[in-house]
């Protein structure tokens, strides 16, 4: 197996406050990694470091076997951020336009051709929102909108899908559907990194779990995590555990 993300001894601080300390972990091809930890534990920071949105203060990161500074193949990563970081709420952009953005990294300054539009149509079909293609993003429900972002990642033919609490504000039923979709994408070979505050969802879906609270408390398969003390150790420092059964 080749590694998709390789994080070595990474530390990161916002000013004086340490967010990550000596974190080392590897995401292998085909993994479904659940990234969990209490509020403010550095989950999002770690994800941003993995994707190159933040540069670590020390340590190194490799993406698809390349040092992250030299990594240029942006189309290989699909990113679904926490809700409301985009302008989808106010800007008139259709679902199709949003999903087409997944092709931008492929075509650069060139024109989009029929194949690009076909890829987009296929992606919309896969996530089940083909009939919403001409609706505006700001008219979709939370669950539909996140599907559109997944479709964007599929349209870019990403090998790695990174999701930062994608189902915040999405009702329970749609959330189950959403995670079923992630499951099927993972089975088709896409590597997934998922930040999720609902630990039940993560232990149900992910095959690997990284539990962090500034430091890495656990990194391994899901069974060993459930049996370990990592959860209470990590959460013991701050905050409470969110745990729903499904």
């Amino acid at each position, binding site marked *: 197996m080749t590694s998709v993300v390789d994080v070595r001894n990474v530390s990161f601080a916002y000013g004086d406050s340490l967010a990550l300390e000596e974190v080392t972990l590897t995401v292998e091809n085909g993994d479904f990694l659940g990234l969990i930890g209490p*509020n*403010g534990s550095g*989950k*999002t920071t770690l994800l941003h470091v993995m994707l*190159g*949105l933040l540069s670590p203060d020390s340590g190194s990161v490799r993406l698809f076997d390349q040092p992250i500074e030299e990594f240029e*193949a*942006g*189309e290989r*990563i699909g*990113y679904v*951020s926490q*809700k*409301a*970081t*985009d*302008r*989808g709420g*106010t*800007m*008139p*952009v*259709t679902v199709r*336009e*949003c999903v087409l*953005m997944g092709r*931008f*990294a492929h*075509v650069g*300054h060139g024109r989009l051709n029929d194949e690009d539009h076909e890829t987009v149509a296929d992606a919309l*079909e*896969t*996530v*089940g*929102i083909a*009939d919403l293609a*001409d*609706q*505006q993003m700001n*008219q*979709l*429900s*939370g*669950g*539909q909108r996140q*599907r559109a*972002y997944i479709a*964007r990642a599929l349209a*870019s033919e990403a090998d790695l899908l*990174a999701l930062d609490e994608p189902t*915040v*504000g*999405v*009702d329970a*039923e*749609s959330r189950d*559907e959403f995670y079923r*979709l992630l499951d099927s994408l993972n089975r088709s070979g896409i590597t997934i990194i998922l930040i999720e*505050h609902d630990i039940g969802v993560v232990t149900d879906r992910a095959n690997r779990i990284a539990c962090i609270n500034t430091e890495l408390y656990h990194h391994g398969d899901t069974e060993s995590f459930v049996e370990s003390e990592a959860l209470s150790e990590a959460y013991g420092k701050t905050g409470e555990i*969110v745990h729903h059964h499904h």
Partner: protein
Amino acid sequence: MTGSKDHDHDHDDESSDTHETAAVDGGTAAYGGPTIRSRPSHLRRNIELIGVALVGVLAAAMIGFIALDWLRRYPGADAFGPLEAVYSATGIDPAAGYLFDQFLIAGEWIDHFLGTEVFQYAFMWRNIATGVLVGVVAPLVGTYLVHRQMALIGETLAHTAFAGVAVGLLFVAVTGWQGSLLYVALVVSVIGALGVQWLTERTNSFGDVPIAIMLTGSFAVGTLLISWGRGFMSIGVDIEEFLFGSLSVVSASGSRLMAALTVGVVAIVAVTYKQLLFITFDEQAARVARLNVSAYNTLLVVMTAVVVVGAMQVLGVILVAGMLVIPVAAASQIAHSFRETLFLSILFGQLSILGGYTFALTQSLPSGGSIIVVAIGIYLAAIAVSDRSGAAISLH
């Protein structure tokens, strides 16, 4: 990182989500979602396309006029090397001066039929041409600015351009330089744009504090320079014309500048449309896709600075930001997609310019204020229309 904010978005319509179950497998589920704006009809789309095409033809004609105006100035334009070659090869007289005269003769006919005294004068055409081009590029750049929530940047760069005009006045007075002081304003404005970009990147967001400092600061420097300059040299330019815009400010070189920057800006937006859209819509995802977000931001800000200097001639420093923002705000009220927003912005921008000119000319009032008032009229109409068709975005 989670917590109470998790529930901020619970207003999303739940009934639509409950139907998603079937969609994963078949993608054919019926969505009983919220009242959704219907797709634009074919008719409406065609009208928009025709409108944009007409604006394109009008803009091309105006660029043509400015080009003729420029070429005819060369002594012996008739014997201009390449033109002469065209003449001997085709037998068609390419003389720019001749065509230019035909243009003004056509203008006389227009005046004759309309009972006006406008279109027979070259300086009026220069004005109208500059205005028409402003009506294309200001909303074009403004569409990205408004949705990046950078509307105040336009205002700031206009004030920087005012400092540029002040520097230009001094420069011209001291050196006796013959060129247009707009070129000096252009240079200063672009430097100001890069300064704004630098400041906002340091402060890590387009926060409004550095912008406000830049806005007032450059205006302060401009007024100081002009007052100081007046102390020991004669400055033969009415500052009020630069503040509020005037029909008499547009010079031949000013209109040439506008034509050149229009061609440049339209070409750049045509090439970078996708990238600018991506960083506008979802900057973080654009970063992950390895777009050079900071370079595109700089490009956008510099284009804004350039457009502002060109547009300042007809709109004035104080009002120029209106043309970047108001047509876009009107278009965003009723557009269904980003592409349509761009088209409608340009259409509304052009209507504001033409309507504003008509009003200004018939009432002998300044062009800047007239254009903005017409633009706001269109904006209010757009709000009214979008309410009537039930298109208001309901979150409840």
